[in-house]
């Protein structure tokens, strides 16, 4: 496979696409949100259980490409157990990573952990929305916005 393409579709991403973590409907969520990408028709439903400022459980369901599904899957793994403030910070760092703005904020990449596998996305501007749909949806659920989210 082409090197640039391999950077985008890293093994971790293909693995999370094939077996997404926390892919289920949550019955006892405290907040949720539906996200939609009108360009490709992708949809995602993110469920959160927030208890005393801590995200104790997170899950998702929906349809999307490998980038969007793996991003949602890794997101759930990364923010589970974090405070809502920490979850928001991870979201901001993730956005910086895939839009290529991380270089302007040195030191932040240490905090990205497994999410660093998405660094290849910055070379594919048309796929940025695929990678961020789940995150915007999660962020909206976090703030208990009733409105559904679209990438447009």
């Amino acid at each position, binding site marked *: *496979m*082409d090197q*640039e*393409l391999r950077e*985008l*579709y890293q093994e971790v991403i*293909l693995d999370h*696409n*094939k077996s997404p973590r926390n892919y289920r409907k949550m019955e006892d969520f405290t907040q949720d949100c539906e996200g939609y990408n009108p*360009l*490709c*028709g*992708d*949809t995602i439903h993110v469920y959160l259980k927030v208890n005393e400022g801590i995200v104790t459980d997170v899950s998702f369901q929906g*349809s*999307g*490409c*490998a*980038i*969007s*599904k793996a991003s949602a899957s890794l997101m759930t793994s990364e923010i589970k157990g974090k405070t809502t403030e920490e979850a928001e910070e991870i979201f901001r760092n993730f956005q910086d990573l895939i839009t290529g703005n991380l270089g302007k904020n040195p030191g932040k990449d240490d905090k990205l952990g497994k999410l660093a596998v998405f660094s290849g996305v910055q070379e*594919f501007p048309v*796929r940025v929305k*695929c990678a961020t749909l789940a995150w915007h949806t999660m962020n909206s659920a976090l703030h208990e916005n009733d409105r559904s989210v679209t990438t447009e």
Partner: protein
Amino acid sequence: MNLKEEISVISNSTVYDVEEIRNDFPILRTYVHDKPLVYLDNAATTQKPISVIQEAQKYYSTMNSNIHRGVHALSGVATEAYETARIKIKKFINALGKNEIIFTKGTTESINLVAQSYGRVNLQSGDEVIISQMEHHSNIVPWQLICNERNAKLKVIPINDEGEIIFEDFEKLITDKTKFVSVVYASNSLGTVNPVKKIIDLAHQNNIPVLLDAAQAVNHIPVDVQEIDCDFLAFSGHKLYGPTGIGILYGKVNLLDSMPPYQGGGDMISKVTFEKTTYNELPHKFEAGTPNIAGAIGLGKAIEYVSKVGIEKISIHEMNLLEYATEAVNLIPGLKIIGTSREKVGVLSFVLDNVHPHDIGTFLDFEGVAIRTGHHCTQPVMDHYNIPATSRASFAMYNTKEEIDVLVNGLKKIIEEFG
């Protein structure tokens, strides 16, 4: 006799030199990710032959001026070239007169023109407009807008699992309230060629006019507006090897005459005072403002090119490609073709188990293959099949079987990667 056999009968020759055609399209020599470009996104837009590209340059270098109003030499030359393009288009679709050919921005504007102008005068509260489930959004939303405004009802002919209109249901939808039928000639996401003659005959028996969205038809099959007897026909230049930003609305002269202007402005009037304005004659009544002159002339040139190759020969070549591609992809495990009508133009939509169309699109791009992925502006079609999107390869006169092999090999590689 099926469509291909019908077209074979009228085609006078079977010689088709695809390499010679390819030489006329400079962009086909492009490399993408170090691979030769395999352009299979023709339903989105087609590439342009060198004669069309040169015509734009020639217009701006030697003719540029405004039409229909200057007394100077250049204005005369530009007007002549613009009106000659109209005559070429009239001949291409066999319209009765050149005043039935209106230049627009594209199919979308052509449909909006009819919805707004014809609809506003002829739709009353409680009236009904019929479209089909396989319409492009551009043949849905303009009708929703005018139906909302006029308090009219939009009714939809359902499709079956092959992606064909269910004709019996169309018959049932017609009532004495039905005032208009607007359907697609050939579907951009399924490839289906609709039985337009049957649809028009039935509508006419009930005195209902019919508009055909022919954006994906005029570039693939011979279209004769007098033979099919449609009342309106809309298509775009850029899907017919011409420039973007230019399209056509064909309308029967008596209908166009009865319709109020769509937009007001220069060129569409014959006399303006603050008390009263009288409108220009057809087709100028519907061409307010300075039009896309270079685009119109370029479209004329594109039609000249298509006619030189022969639309019948293009049809047969593309249908052969479609048969070849259909057979090849049917052998790929986990692949399902969306749109399996008996009559299709060169559009191949498919889904692959466990691989999203967007991932297919990105992988194929690295093989040099350009396809379209998404809902193709036909979300009700996606809803019918309960899928968010498809991958779509669509063929044009310059595509080859070798290019389809590249597509198929690319798909096999993707399956290996995604396992």
